[in-house]
């Protein structure tokens, strides 16, 4: 059912695209001075027509990517290519993946890559990293200043319901000198299909034995959470942030693009223990350090976890922000899509620091960008 209606919408979208007389890019092409080699090819397909009709590219998914896409990229891309209309929606990574497969959107945004089983079913789907993001553990602890030190193992025990009070011996041992209140911990988690849940539970699977065992909760965009009576669910990163702000003594995981908003509301965030045993904050340098240890292992399909990477300064929860795209697209849509994605990953375009810094993202590493480019070039072929 779902798939069929998705196809129909896709057909009508592509039909609308064709009627729009292959508008492509026209005037904006000159602005696209991408540092990377193949970027020009994409726009070459559709130049030369008088641009009266417009191609619409719809994005939906990750609430972590949303502040970047909606607040920065859409406005910026208007001047690059006025003939392309971009729309964005913050619906959660699970939706991003499923809508991109169904064809109701051209770009599904996701913090999580697709599983092998899904790729086997939908071999036309590409997982294209656009930028590097991270996730921080945030808490509402009245009276506690500075950054708590936490390990993945302790977080796992909190979400398993084994550590229930803030002054538990395990938390105290990590934070000598901090006066922790004897209050029940309120763990907050996402209820929607979420890339942040994927990242957080992957971190727990890597660091907590029970969590990662074959009978444990494991990881995914939505998992079977252990029963914890004090736990509450919230929808989207915005939901988690407001839930944390409203609930004293709560803890939760929040995508880094929401860091500024959350700290303004009085939430603190933790220094997490990395694989080398050091406690690190999600600073630009530490995210960069984690990314640099992983770049050499990125495969051509680019579906890889960057969680809990080695290195003395590596921040343990970082990830690629993916655009989930169907490579089978009709001419005008394919051209517009390729051009936009090439712009998005270009260090002088979407990945420039003026867009990355406000959301604390990092641009794609120079050695990964060509792999994303190779995937982008498969679109429409």
């Amino acid at each position, binding site marked *: 059912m779902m798939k069929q209606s998705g196809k129909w919408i896709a057909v009508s979208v592509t039909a609308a695209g064709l009627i729009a007389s292959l508008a492509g890019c026209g005037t904006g092409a000159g602005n696209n001075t991408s540092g990377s080699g193949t970027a020009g090819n994409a726009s070459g397909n559709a130049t030369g027509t008088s641009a009266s009709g417009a191609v619409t590219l719809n994005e939906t998914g990750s609430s972590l990517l949303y502040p970047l896409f909606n607040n920065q990229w859409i406005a910026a891309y208007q001047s690059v290519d006025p003939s392309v209309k971009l729309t964005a929606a913050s619906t959660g990574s699970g939706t991003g993946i499923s809508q991109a497969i169904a064809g109701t959107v051209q770009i599904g945004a996701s913090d999580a890559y697709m*599983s092998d089983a899904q790729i086997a079913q939908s071999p036309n789907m590409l997982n294209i990293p656009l930028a590097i993001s991270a996730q921080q553990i945030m808490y509402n602890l009245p009276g506690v200043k500075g950054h708590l030190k936490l390990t993945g193992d302790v977080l796992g025990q909190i979400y398993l319901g084994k550590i229930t009070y803030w002054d538990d011996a395990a938390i105290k041992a990590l934070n000598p000198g901090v006066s922790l209140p004897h209050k029940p911990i309120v763990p907050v988690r996402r209820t929607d299909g979420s890339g942040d849940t994927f990242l957080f539970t992957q971190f727990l699977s890597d660091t907590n034995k029970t969590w990662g065992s074959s*009978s444990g909760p494991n990881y995914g965009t939505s998992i079977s959470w252990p029963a914890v009576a004090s736990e509450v669910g919230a929808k989207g990163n915005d939901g988690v942030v407001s839930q944390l702000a409203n609930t004293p003594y709560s803890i939760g995981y929040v995508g880094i693009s929401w860091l500024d908003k959350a700290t303004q509301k009085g939430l603190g965030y933790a220094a997490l223990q990395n694989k080398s045993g050091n406690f690190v904050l999600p600073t630009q340098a530490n995210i960069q350090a984690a990314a640099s240890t992983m770049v050499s292992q990125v495969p051509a399909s680019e579906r890889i976890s960057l969680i809990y990477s080695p290195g003395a300064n590596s921040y343990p929860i970082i990830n690629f922000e993916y655009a989930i795209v169907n490579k089978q697209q009709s001419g005008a849509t394919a051209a517009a899509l390729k051009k936009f994605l090439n712009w998005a990953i270009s260090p002088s375009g979407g990945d420039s620091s003026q867009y990355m810094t406000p959301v604390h993202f990092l641009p794609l590493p120079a050695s990964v960008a060509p792999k994303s480019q190779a995937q982008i070039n498969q679109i429409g072929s």
Partner: protein
Amino acid sequence: MRKVSSASKNADRVFRVATGVAASSPVVFLVVIALIVLVQAIPSMKFNGWHFIYGIQWNMGNLYGALEHKNGVTAAAGASYAALPFIVGTLASSIIAILIAIPISMFTALILAYRVRGVLQWILSILVELLAGIPSVVIGLWGIITLAPWVRDNLAVWLSHLGPVVPYLRGPVGTGLGLLSSGLVLAIMIVPIITATTRDLLMQVPILYREGGIGLGMTTWEVVRYICMPFIRDGFVGALALGWGRAMGETMAVLMVSGSAMNLLPHNLYSPISTMAAVIADQLDSALTDASQMAVHALAELALILMVLTLLTNFLARWLVTRTGRRRSTKAGVAA
């Protein structure tokens, strides 16, 4: 005999087809939707069996792992679906809502029907209907921002003092998101429906009956209790069934204030819960990423149970009406 022109014959034919199509559409839609839900649910029934109704764990399995085969169907490794917490959450929150809504809507309807007149009646009636028109997401937002903190800091704390008497009121009071807040939000949403229906029913009570009661020296309350309420009883139960059905199916507002519990049965009035409708809305996007599709089938089975439960409550209400109705008439017969 008047000669029937071909034009009017055609018009009659068109009329017949149009009314036929329009009149059959509710039945057709109901049957088609029920069939699709049923067909979608069958793989989940095969996979989970009866365990689906009495088990507690809702587990999509490892969506990034291998697929497993069981009972002739495929699912993600480790998947096992059971919906008891969601069924309990749906019933508990809707029953709390009904219990709160019965007195409020009854008394509001009495005031609207008998006590206020003219412009005031008109304004108050419009306000009640406006309350029914507030989108559920707005009520949910109010629930998160205003109601839940108030429940956490005031109402729940106060109610928990009754803990020694009623075990289900015992603390801890939690975060304010949970069963009590869900029930309150649902009550607000069904009060206008029940009130409007009850008001119309009360206005149908023949004025002679009421005047007769007053003429016999009955007080206002006695007129309501012995004349109006028996008169509207059947319709009132129908209104309650309508409200109950609405409360069980309500999604967005509950989703926002329920605390979205998983794998957990409520242990007191303040526990986080989840309802079937909220789970379907919440989990569908992740379910669609399940390569085995079993997660979607399990949600379809949940939808099927919700439909069946709504039907059952409807039948229950009807049965209550006929049963009490029959008893009364026999009693009256004996008395005469």
